[in-house]
């Protein structure tokens, strides 16, 4: 499967060639990947420099001038550092933008907490006019971007380093969750590359005669409430797996879909209320934070035994 960062560059090139309103601003990353875009779309690519608040804010000016801006750098440097710019220069002023970040939650696993971002869903969800995507395969990134970039909204794309490795032909569209594997005993609701872990866990559970329904969510906002609710009404048990803080992420929204429904049991695998101070590979951090098939299986096993 293609490298995610390469797909990001290829998708921008594809859209940029077809639509001369697409303008790309980067904060001195992905520069070499975007040289084909710069060559194919003269005057519409700018490596502005290391000044994220200005990059985000000036793109609002491009939006006023009638363009579809794309701003791009590592997640925390846009979402956390330039949060007020997103809030005031886009959301408040009803302007549109495409924010495409890399680094995801802890893809920069060796670089420490300055390069991690576990708060993006929680921060961006409350802002009016935002859509939040976590496309975790090249095809998804391509489809979700092409179907959203000119929709007048603030589209946030959290692009992970790793793909989940699956394809869902004809099933990817903004705002629609995918039922990857039907089941009856428990719902595993998962976003991002952790789909791979969830699928492995569902196989182990199957061997234990526990039928897990795996729901894959690439659009965090708006959440596909129908698919989630139907699954919860069937299984009455759910684990939400997300590389995000335990506060304000997908888990909160899944619970919200069932607030007035009795006897649905939930558990979560997310990032606890502390910084991940460990170093190592992405897989090492997954293990430290509990993103393992064993953890999913253990929690699922407990949930299905609950009365």
């Amino acid at each position, binding site marked *: 499967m293609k490298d995610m960062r390469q797909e990001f560059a290829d998708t921008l090139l594809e859209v940029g060639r077809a639509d001369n309103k697409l*303008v790309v601003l980067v904060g001195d990353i992905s520069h070499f990947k975007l040289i084909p875009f710069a060559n194919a779309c003269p*005057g*519409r690519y*700018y490596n*502005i*420099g290391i*000044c994220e*608040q*200005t990059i985000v*804010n*000036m*793109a*609002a*000016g*491009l*939006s*006023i*001038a*009638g*363009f579809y*801006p794309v701003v791009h750098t590592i997640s925390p440097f846009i979402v956390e550092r330039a949060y*007020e*710019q997103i809030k*005031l*220069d886009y959301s*408040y*002023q*009803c302007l549109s933008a495409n924010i495409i970040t890399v680094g995801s939650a802890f893809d920069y696993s060796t670089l420490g907490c300055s390069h991690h971002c576990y708060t993006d869903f929680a921060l961006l969800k409350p802002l009016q006019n935002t859509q939040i995507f976590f496309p975790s395969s090249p095809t998804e990134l391509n489809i979700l971007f092409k179907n959203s970039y000119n929709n007048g909204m603030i589209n946030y794309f959290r692009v992970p380093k790793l793909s989940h490795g699956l394809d869902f032909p004809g099933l990817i569209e903004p705002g629609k969750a995918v039922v990857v594997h039907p089941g009856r005993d428990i719902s595993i609701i998962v976003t991002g590359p952790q789909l791979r872990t969830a699928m492995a866990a569902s196989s182990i559970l199957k061997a234990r005669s526990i039928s897990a329904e795996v729901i894959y969510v690439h659009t965090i906002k708006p959440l596909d409430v129908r698919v989630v609710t139907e699954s919860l009404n069937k299984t009455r048990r759910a684990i939400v797996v997300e590389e995000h803080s335990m506060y304000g992420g997908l888990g909160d929204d899944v619970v919200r879909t069932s607030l007035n429904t009795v006897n649905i049991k939930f558990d979560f695998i997310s990032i606890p209320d502390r910084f991940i101070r460990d170093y190592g590979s992405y897989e090492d951090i997954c293990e430290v934070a509990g993103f393992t098939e064993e953890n999913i299986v253990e929690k699922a096993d407990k949930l299905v035994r609950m009365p």
Partner: protein
Amino acid sequence: MTANKELRKKIVDVVCMAGEGHIPSAFSIIDIVACLYGNVLKVDPKCPDWKQRDYFILSKGHGCAALYVVLEKHGFITRKDLDNKSKRGGILGGHPDRTKVPGAEASTGSLGHGIVTALGIALGLRIKKFTNRVFALAGDGECNEGSVWETALVASNLKLGNLCFIIDNNGSAAQVLPMNDFKKKWESFGWEAYEVNGHDPDELITVFDKLKFEYEGQPKVIIANTVKGKGVSFLETHGIWHYKVPDDNERKMIYKELDQ
């Protein structure tokens, strides 16, 4: 001799009616804003979104009473709009909202945003090869913000010759974090810088006439030396009058000084 006395009186009226507002900040910039709309900007009140218009952003949004009275004078908004400032159902607030105010190109309030938006508009117009010009007015205190200097670097690096900032240099920064050698600072960032008396309409017109706007070239900055509260002795301070509404007696005193 104070210019724009009637506009200053109207600012006082608007703030008194609203029960809130920044009179000294508005008095500081009123001569600049009046000059821009009266002599410089190509705009059409009947069609605020006219494609060939010049753009003006009031980055120091708290001075908006000055913008509002000038917009009303030129027919963008009505006297009734002014009377309803900061009231339920009104379109004018304590900072301009572009989604409500005809002629307001950006919503401002938090300092260090409007000028960056202006930078983006200037780049967008250049990509389109349009000749519209972009102006933004910021305060010297606002220039404490890091985004101002990021913008100074980026605009110069991009050679945005269609961009002009005006700095309302009323000494607010000097109270806390002084911006010494202001003109030199901008010049060292690659800007074509001018310094004028920001209360002298003739000096302002002369400097605006001098500017040569172009697709590629140096961005321009005019350091407009001003007095906060200009025109009324007891407002010319950096103290309590920053956000104070005059009572009836104080309002009469302001009028009296302006009439002298």
